[in-house]
């Protein structure tokens, strides 16, 4: 087969799709042949046509970021078909809330000291031990067995 026009190896996308990799292939810059799994994951979860449409909707200088984020989400979804990367978002959101509560409590202690009030005892603050209250994760994210998080406490759903 004459392939003298194309000196470059086909990109991972065209290799996976078993088609000729054209010079203007939209996938070629972002799915190098050295990373075949990246496109396989993205294609499995989102589909090549959807990815192509998404890439065409963003500016050229944003496409690499878009592809990287899609690859991240696809890999997360393959590892966790139920929650995908949304599970990680939930974990981080809870972490932010927990840290903010701890910060608020520490600032409250500082105010007490500044006002020359009696300080609380060391380690007696209840919210520092509050790791599982309001823990909405399902069992795979939480080692609690109270079942309050089973299937997610999506009360407004």
């Amino acid at each position, binding site marked *: 087969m004459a392939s003298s026009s194309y000196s470059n190896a086909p990109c991972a996308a065209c290799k996976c799709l078993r088609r000729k990799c054209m010079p203007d292939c939209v996938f070629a810059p972002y799915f190098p042949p050295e990373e075949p799994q990246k496109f396989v994951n993205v294609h499995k*979860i*989102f*589909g090549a*046509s*959807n990815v192509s449409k*998404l890439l065409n*909707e*963003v500016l050229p*200088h944003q496409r*690499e*970021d*878009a592809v*990287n*984020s899609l*690859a*991240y*989400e696809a*890999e*997360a979804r393959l*590892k*966790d*078909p*139920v*929650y*995908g*990367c*949304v*599970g*990680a978002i*939930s*974990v*981080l*959101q809870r*972490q*932010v*809330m927990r*840290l*903010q509560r*701890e*910060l608020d409590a*520490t*600032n*409250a202690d*500082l*105010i007490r*000291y*500044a*006002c*020359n009030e009696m*300080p609380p005892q060391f380690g007696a603050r209840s919210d520092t031990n509050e*790791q599982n209250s309001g823990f*909405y994760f399902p069992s795979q*994210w939480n080692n609690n067995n109270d079942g309050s998080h089973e*299937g*997610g*406490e*999506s*009360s*407004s*759903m």
Partner: protein
Amino acid sequence: MTLKASQACAACKYQRRRCSSDCPLAPYFPADQPRLFQNAHKLFGRSNILSIIKPLDAERRAEAMRSIIYEANIRDRYPVHGCLGVVCQLQYQIWQVEAELRAAQAQLDMYRQMYYQQQLSTVAADDVPSQLELGMALPYIDALSLLHNNNTNDDDDAVASYSYNSYSSLYMDARDVWVEDTHAANNNNGSSMAFQSQLVASQPLEIQQEVVRDCDEMHPFFDTVDDRQSYVDSKEAYESSSEESLKDTTQSIEHVGENELKTAAACFTLTSVN
């Protein structure tokens, strides 16, 4: 009942198919919320959605559909970065709050030491007022205002220092963080979060300006997914998240602290201590 049976779900409506009574997508895409399916279809496609949920049981299927809808909504809102942008922004927030917490705890430790020294000196000489009582308020004000100013400056610098080169490497780190999350979420998250903090601290984040702005309005996942109605109306599912309310709380605590300090400082008079 006849009306409800004849009404096609949003998925079948969008694709102009006949919506059967056992349509697998009907429970998750009500007819009055067409945008949900449009976003999900745009990102995943109907067949991919079905292949994701097919091997799952009914309960996990519902959860999977909620996360799919959530992910698609995020992608609709942030077409370039999607959920990865949200993850990065949350990591950055964690790093910020942890830095603030460390500073506050250091300040608190200092005051505790001063307090106990004061207790000891009170026991030794009961009627001698300590200078600690007099000077305690002042460093506190400076530390808080310093923290606030530093955080504001760091926030602007971190957001402004956006480079596409570091984003690619950040993707690799976020992937590792995701793996850390899944394995460490059942245990104390301290080690994984410390790992994330190190990642964020070592590599300045480059996130779209609109992601930085809009992430403040995001609901936590489990609140957002349930609030379909408000999403349909005006994307208000992302409004007034915990981050926004927490920010208000922090600011109010700082404000209260300064007022109380000024009042407290006025109560003390300078005396000599020997």
